[in-house]
Structures are given as structure tokens and as C-alpha cells.
């Protein structure tokens, strides 16, 4: 047995649904456009949330402190003897020099990241084998040996060949031999990597043997990272000192919905839709005005008419919200964010295929709901209230 109050609401809901169905093409069009806007906003939020979540998880073991030498506002090579100057700071476990940089492959228009460090120098070196599909990392005396990311192998067109060459700055060729390939699971980090010995990287980039690109510092007590970073920046004033915490914060900023061009475009689309909804609702058609007038003459109260408009708007916006967010999840989880990916990777020739779990949090859903459903409710119910307070005889005359 349905309580009388609820039965009345069911009847109003039935009337609202019939009313929506009478103008089905217009309402389906609104649901479609509305779902599209919510889909874009939710896709963007889920994709960037997934990327920042992944960054937070996998970058947990990033170097605790990174030291870069600065000159005239730019980063330049850092002398290896800077590592020795840090010996006076208590609590430093290891200082690992790295040689790394970018190699632009002009024939394929691709940028590779060349990374070189002494084998075994990093604390987590023993587990590196997990990242390889096959092969091994080059050892200290293994001149010319490299491990390639999967896209680098594809773009160089190596297939089963093991040897290839890259140009030095003076355009002479340096030969390399592939000793291993990174696996698919590590794509999100290693897709554009060429890992080699520091001596080979110095030869390729023409860097002096006494220099490195940066220094990675590992500390004994993680609680002391900030203190040690401050001591380093005092001891080496011509350097920039980055801590692990700052690296993590970077990813919360670059992928935040509050920053970036795309979010501005999406918010603009939402505002445009709210204006459209307002325009549509504020200019009720003469037929709709007459319907309201007849209902009032038949004994319907203003509250009942508002309930009809509320149900109509709530149904349209809620259905659009559910369809839009569901489609956004499918877009990110199954299609790798295909529509937004070109914006995120720009002109990059190398980019990994995204395998990301969409970030869906209650806060995000409430935020999208607030930006979509609430403005639409306001934009349709308020004009209906203004119309329903007008004397019915003046409306139907």
C-alpha cells in the first residue's frame, strides 16, 4: 500500500514523464548535449585524477633529493666534485651522479630520453630486472650496450636487429648494441628511454668526464629530507635542490582540474549550457504557458506545477549526469581517454598507451553534480514558478 503523499508524487512523476515524452525530440536533444558536456568534464577529471594517482603511487621511490647546477637561470652540467663537498652533511646515505638528456631523432621527429648511471649505484637496482621484457642491463664495461623503451625500438624500426647508431653533436655516428627491451608494464615510465652507461652518454652528448647532469641524494632518515635539502642549498648556492615531496606536489598541480587550458574550455562549455538552459526556460512557449494556466483552472496548486517542473528538470539533468559519467568511465578505462589524449600529448611522437583506472571519488561526483544538475534545476524551475504565479485567465486568454 503506497502512502497517499507518495502516490501523489508518483502521479505527478507520471504526468511529468508524459509531458517530457510529448516533446521527446527536444528533451532527448537536451539530454544528449548535457550528457556530452558532463562526459567531457568527467573524462577530464577521471583521466587527470588517474594520472596524478598513478604518479603518487609509482613515484614513491623517486630520489629523495635531486641537485641541479644553475647558471644564468638555466640548468647546466654539474661537476662531480660537488658530491665530495656534501660529505660534511651528516645523514646522507649515497650521492649518485646521473648523466641524462634528450636526443632528437630528426628523421622520425621523436624525442628520446637518454638516461645513464653506474650499474648498481641506485638503491633499487637489484629489482630492475622486473622491468625488462627480455635481455639485461648493460654492465660497467659493456661499452655501447643499451636498453630501449618499447616505442624507441618501434620508431627506430629495429625489429630483431640489435645494432643502431645515433649522431654525436659533431654529426659523427656512435654505434650502440641493444642488450634489453623494457616491458609493457613499465611503459608509462620507460616508453621513450634509452638506458646506457655514463661513459657512452658522455661520449654521445660530448660531456666532460668530470661532469654529470644532476646528482641524486639518498638520506638515511626520510624525516630529515627537508633539513638536509636546506643544508645542501646553503652549501651549494649555485644549485637548485628538489626534494621528493616537491616532485610529488608537481604532479598534483600539473594534472589538477584547477589548472590547465582544458579545464577552462570545459567550464566555459558548462556555463554556455547553463545560459542556454536559462534562455530556453525563461522563454516558456505559449503552449507551455497555456498548459500551466489550464492546470491551475482545473484546481492544481502552484506547488503542484512547480513539482512537475522540478521532476522534469531533475529527470533530464540526473539522466544526463548518469549517462555522462558512465560514458566518461568507459572512455577512460576502456578507450584510454582517446578524445583527450591528443590534447595531453600534443605533438609528441612517443607516448604510451594509457592503461589507467579512472579516479572516481565521491567529492568529484558531487562537484560535477553541483556544476551540472543544480544550475539546470535553477534555470528551469525558477521561470516556471514565475509563470505559475500569474493569474490563469490572463495566460490562456
Amino acid at each position, binding site marked *: 500500500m503506497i502512502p497517499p503523499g507518495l502516490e501523489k508524487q508518483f502521479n505527478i512523476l*507520471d504526468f511529468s*514523464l508524459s509531458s517530457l515524452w510529448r516533446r521527446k525530440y527536444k528533451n532527448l536533444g537536451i539530454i544528449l548535449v548535457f550528457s556530452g558536456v558532463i562526459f567531457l568534464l568527467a573524462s577530464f577529471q577521471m583521466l587527470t585524477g588517474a594520472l596524478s594517482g598513478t604518479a603518487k603511487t609509482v613515484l614513491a621511490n623517486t630520489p629523495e633529493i635531486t641537485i*641541479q647546477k644553475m647558471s644564468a637561470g638555466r*640548468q647546466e652540467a654539474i661537476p662531480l666534485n660537488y658530491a665530495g663537498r656534501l660529505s660534511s652533511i651528516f645523514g646522507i646515505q649515497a650521492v649518485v651522479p646521473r648523466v641524462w638528456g634528450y636526443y632528437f631523432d630528426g628523421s622520425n621527429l621523436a624525442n628520446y630520453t637518454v638516461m645513464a648511471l653506474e650499474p648498481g649505484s641506485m638503491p633499487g637496482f637489484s629489482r630492475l630486472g622486473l622491468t625488462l621484457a627480455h635481455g639485461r642491463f648493460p654492465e660497467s664495461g659493456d661499452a655501447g650496450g643499451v636498453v630501449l623503451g618499447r616505442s624507441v625500438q618501434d620508431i627506430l624500426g629495429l625489429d630483431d636487429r640489435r645494432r643502431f647508431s645515433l649522431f654525436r653533436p659533431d654529426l659523427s655516428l656512435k654505434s650502440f648494441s641493444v642488450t634489453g627491451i623494457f616491458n609493457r608494464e613499465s611503459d608509462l615510465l*620507460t616508453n621513450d628511454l634509452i638506458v646506457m652507461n655514463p661513459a657512452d652518454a658522455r661520449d654521445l652528448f660530448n660531456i666532460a668526464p668530470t661532469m654529470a647532469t644532476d646528482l641524486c641524494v639518498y638520506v638515511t632518515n626520510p624525516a630529515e629530507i627537508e633539513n638536509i635539502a636546506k643544508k645542501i642549498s646553503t652549501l651549494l648556492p649555485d644549485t637548485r635542490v628538489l626534494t621528493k615531496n616537491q616532485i610529488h606536489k608537481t604532479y598534483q598541480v600539473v*594534472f589538477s582540474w584547477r589548472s590547465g587550458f582544458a579545464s577552462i574550455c570545459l567550464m566555459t562549455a558548462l556555463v554556455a549550457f547553463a545560459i542556454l538552459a536559462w534562455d530556453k526556460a525563461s522563454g516558456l512557449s505559449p503552449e507551455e504557458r497555456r498548459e500551466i494556466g489550464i492546470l491551475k483552472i482545473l484546481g492544481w496548486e502552484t506547488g503542484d506545477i512547480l513539482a512537475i517542473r522540478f521532476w522534469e528538470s531533475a529527470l533530464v539533468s540526473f539522466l544526463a549526469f548518469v549517462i555522462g559519467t558512465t560514458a566518461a568511465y568507459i572512455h577512460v578505462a576502456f578507450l584510454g581517454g582517446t578524445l583527450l589524449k591528443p590534447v595531453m600529448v600534443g605533438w609528441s611522437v*612517443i*607516448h604510451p598507451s594509457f592503461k589507467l583506472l579512472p579516479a572516481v571519488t565521491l567529492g568529484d561526483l558531487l562537484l560535477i553534480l553541483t556544476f551540472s544538475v543544480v544550475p539546470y534545476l535553477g534555470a528551469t524551475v525558477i521561470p516556471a514558478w514565475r509563470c505559475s504565479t500569474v493569474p490563469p485567465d490572463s495566460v490562456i486568454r
Partner: protein
Amino acid sequence: MRPSKILLVILLLLLFVDGMLYLHAGLMARDLQNDHAVQAAAVAGLGLTDLCVATEARYTRHPAVSDPMAPFMDHPGTIEHFPTGSFWGAPQAADFL
């Protein structure tokens, strides 16, 4: 059939689809744990600092260790021209020591 019952069927259908997606999310999270372990090994072993998402410019390939003013530093008055530079938010200058 009452229109509200047709609506109920549509809502149940959507609930079913979303329920399936919820189950999918659980399975995918379990599946991704393995990927994350491999990625964490790469980070620890090579000292990596950034995700390989956009490789077109150094400040979007390695935003964590690039100069915050990098997009505009190639020559005085230069303008940003890489598409990803306008999509990605810049790290706050105050983050650097």
C-alpha cells in the same frame, strides 16, 4: 505500463551497467597492482622522476625537474608554442628551494 515504471526499468538498467563498471574497477585495480610494482622498480632502479606522458618538450616530459619558466626561456620575448604547454599547469615557483 505507467511511465514511472518504464523510468524505473531504465534506472535499473543504468544501475546494472554502473554495478558492472564498479566490479570492473575492482578487477582493474588488482590488475594494475602488478604494473605499479614494475613501474616502482623502474623508478627505484633508475632514479626516474616523471611519467612519460608527453615527450614533445622537456618541461612536459620532466615537469618535476625542469625550470618553471622553461616555456619562455629560449630567447627573450619568446612565446610558448607546444600544445601541451598550455594544457599542463606549471609547477609553483615557490616549490623550489
